């Protein structure tokens, strides 16, 4: 047996900016505050975005995935960047307006203690990174991808420093507790978290003696929380959460299959500087106020391209793809409009086995005329054209508490 020509390493580590950092020897890798706990729990540690991260625990990717969908999973996402943006004027609206010069999103209209998804765009309308933005009353709290965080921080410092203080919170860890039983589990340690709605944020919350900032959000398609905690308290908090009977530790392997079934983009694979938010089917993230005829239309990098595509449509679109057979169609599989001959009309950007779906799932880009749901297409796997269908995402119904 040997690794094949097609895929040797999992999608989350292949060619991804998070995986191709300079530090690839284990000894050069950074560690999160939970590193020793991962090792103690028997995690298999791999290099990811310059960090040594748990790809799986003894439960294994499949069971970790299914456990998260059935109960609750705890993820260490401390490699992600946490940044505080505070207006020098003292008025958080100024920070919001400054941030709006970098993202096509309504930041000013984001309510206090509310969070939303956003993306940094470039002058051609490409995506530099995707991120979460929260309004914490007197400042903005920003969470960015690990592989992009140095560039993101440089971008914010460069563009916003005249109006804002940019503070990188590298003394904080980030834990995600995800799954249908996340609320019940966490509420036993702090009942008030049950009252939070999807994308609510709370600050100074006491979780069994540990003070945290948390949001009701995540990246698995499940209900849950993302919990920012001081590095010094991170291990103690993780142990308290793992002691809850619903909770198992979950690695990056299952995180990838969970977000794929959830139809969520992985930066560096499904979105990057060559994809616009409209091509990526992220139109929902661009509120009316930033679109043509909105009160604060444009004013972000690449607005010309993005606003024009919002009106006229983009030449290609990210869609869900459901392979018919059992063969997984992974990143890089070419998509055709015919079983024989025809034209190459797209590419798979993420794909694999969906444990909850019980079969292969994928997403990728196809030309606009082939992007309609139920369009039959073919993916070429090991020289054979296998049928697949354009499908609505998510593949698994989202389970958010609205």
């Amino acid at each position, binding site marked *: 047996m040997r690794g094949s020509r097609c*895929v040797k390493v*999992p999608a989350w580590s292949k060619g991804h900016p998070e995986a191709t950092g300079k530090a690839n020897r284990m000894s050069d890798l950074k560690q999160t505050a939970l590193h020793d706990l991962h090792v103690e729990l028997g995690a298999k540690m791999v290099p990811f975005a310059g960090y040594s991260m748990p790809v799986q625990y003894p439960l294994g990717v*499949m069971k970790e995935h299914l456990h998260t969908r059935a109960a609750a999973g705890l993820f260490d996402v401390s490699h992600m960047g946490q940044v505080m943006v505070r207006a020098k004027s003292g008025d958080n609206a100024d920070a919001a307006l400054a941030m709006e010069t970098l993202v096509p999103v309504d930041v000013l209209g984001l309510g206090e203690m509310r969070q939303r998804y956003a993306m940094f765009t470039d002058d051609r309308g490409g995506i530099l990174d995707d991120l979460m933005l929260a309004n914490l009353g007197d400042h903005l709290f920003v969470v960015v991808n690990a592989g992009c965080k140095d560039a993101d921080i440089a971008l914010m410092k460069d563009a916003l420093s005249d109006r804002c203080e940019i503070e990188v919170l590298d003394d904080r860890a980030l834990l995600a507790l995800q799954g249908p039983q996340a609320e019940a589990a966490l509420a036993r340690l702090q009942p008030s978290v049950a009252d939070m709605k999807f994308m609510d944020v709370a600050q100074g919350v006491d979780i069994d003696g540990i003070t945290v900032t948390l949001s009701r959000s995540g990246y698995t398609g499940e209900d849950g929380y993302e919990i920012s905690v001081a590095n010094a308290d991170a291990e103690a908090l993780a142990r308290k959460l793992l002691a809850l009977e619903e909770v198992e530790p979950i690695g990056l392997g299952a995180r990838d299959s969970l977000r794929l079934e959830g139809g969520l983009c992985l930066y560096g694979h499904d979105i990057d500087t060559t994809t616009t938010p409209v091509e990526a089917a992220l139109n929902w993230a661009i509120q009316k106020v930033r679109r043509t005829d909105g009160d604060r239309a444009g004013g972000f990098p690449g607005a010309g391209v993005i606003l024009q595509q919002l009106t006229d449509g983009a030449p290609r679109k990210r869609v869900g793809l459901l392979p018919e057979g059992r063969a997984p169609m992974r990143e890089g599989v070419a998509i055709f409009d015919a079983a024989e001959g025809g034209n190459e009309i797209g590419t798979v950007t993420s794909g694999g086995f969906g444990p909850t779906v019980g079969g292969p799932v994928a997403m990728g880009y196809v030309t606009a005329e082939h992007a309609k749901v139920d369009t039959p297409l073919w993916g070429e796997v090991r020289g054979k054209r296998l049928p697949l269908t354009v499908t609505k995402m998510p593949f698994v119904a989202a389970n958010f508490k609205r």
Partner: protein
Amino acid sequence: MKFTEEHEWLRVEGDEVIVGITTHAAEQLGDVVFVELPDEGTVVSKDDEVVVIESVKAASDILAPIDGEITEVNSTLTDNPSMVNDDPQGEAWFFKLKFTDATQMDDFMDEAAYQKFIG
């Protein structure tokens, strides 16, 4: 039972050899979700790619360990790929190969040598 450096096990029965992957290989692969088997009657040469295995993590090939003809495949694996994790060195054999040159078997490791090989 003999073992290859590609983590296959081989068991000779008459003029046939039964081929599967080792417990160690199955553990490294993780949960197997897809198996593609060759057609019975296919004539193969040593190192031809004969089987595709996909796990939740990656795709891998099983290579023909020696020259010969595929006489039988374990088609239950197609519908039940997780058997590869449950019983890799027993029920989850992949194919039987009628060999043409028995001396090709001489190079392979015995169990002790394989255990040493995987360290």
